[in-house]
């Protein structure tokens, strides 16, 4: 696999991915091996400011939480699409710019619709 061959570039990406994944996983695995484990019923009880928990936490919470999270996910994905475009913005010329503006307009329309249905207000 000569340095200029096609796969070589992906090798770099592979190593980078490997390190990225090992950063979170390594401490977790290390902690699971090395950390002392002395569970007891009081320790594993849920912590609520020092007192026993009253009432159960599996309640029907308001639907607004769910809708708010949904709105966030939509616009988070939108940002992910903008990143690669922003990186190669210079080389791609005017056409890619117009295409991105159309993409943003469609999503902006969705935001206006949500705004009018006042999903964003928190009653």
């Amino acid at each position, binding site marked *: 696999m000569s340095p200029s061959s096609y796969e070589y570039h992906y090798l770099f990406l592979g190593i980078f991915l490997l390190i990225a994944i090992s950063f979170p996983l390594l401490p977790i695995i290390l902690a699971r091996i090395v*950390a*002392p*484990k*002395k569970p*007891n*019923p*009081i*320790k594993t*009880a849920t*912590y609520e*400011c*020092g*007192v026993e928990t009253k009432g159960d936490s599996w309640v029907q919470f308001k639907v607004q939480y769910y809708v708010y999270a949904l709105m966030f996910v939509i616009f988070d994905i939108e940002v992910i699409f903008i990143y690669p475009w922003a990186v190669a913005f210079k080389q791609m010329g005017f056409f890619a710019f117009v295409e991105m503006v159309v993409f943003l307009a469609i999503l902006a329309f969705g935001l206006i619709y949500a705004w009018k249905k006042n999903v964003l207000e928190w009653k």
Partner: protein
Amino acid sequence: MSAAKNISQVDEGLKSELQKSGIFVTTLEGLYNWGRRSSIWPLQFGLACCAIEMIATACARYDIDRFGAGLFRPSPRQADLMIVSGTVTKKMTPQVVRLYNQMPEPKYVITMGACSISGGPFKDGYNVLKGIDRYIPVDVHLPGCPPRPEALLHGLMKLQEKIDSQQIEKMEWYQKGLKREFPVPEFGPNGLNPPYNPDVFQPQQHREITVG
């Protein structure tokens, strides 16, 4: 427990030689204890007047951050040092013991101020617990009412010395069968029952002093 010097098999002369050429030699224990000693995260847990002095220690003038202990964690899950700063009343004791139980294993307790050591000036009160060491093991007793911020820093240094001298094999939380659970007392009609935790606290026997 006397703070034994950090016994490492490498002799000092060789160590200082290598250090000159930039090579640092230490035992795994030395590294392990140095890591834990320099990053103790105290539990954000102020009871009374000593809490204000603890915050003053965390502030700019006395700066507990120089010892790595500046990050006060509100939740016991991420704390490894509980500074009991203030009067522990009988109504608060179950909460304190439950918080201590909920802290992950290498955990230490500093009883800051005379109140948490032995009830302090409020000892004769009907609602005051005569010292938190009746229910949980305490590592450093820090007298004073309130102890000055420098005294709290001194207490923290004493705790760091204690951590330095711990051997990995002999630490309690690594022993196999050891039960590290401290039962939470309940509220009785008169006070707390049980009045103290037998395997942590032995009341002094009132010896009759015969004169002459």
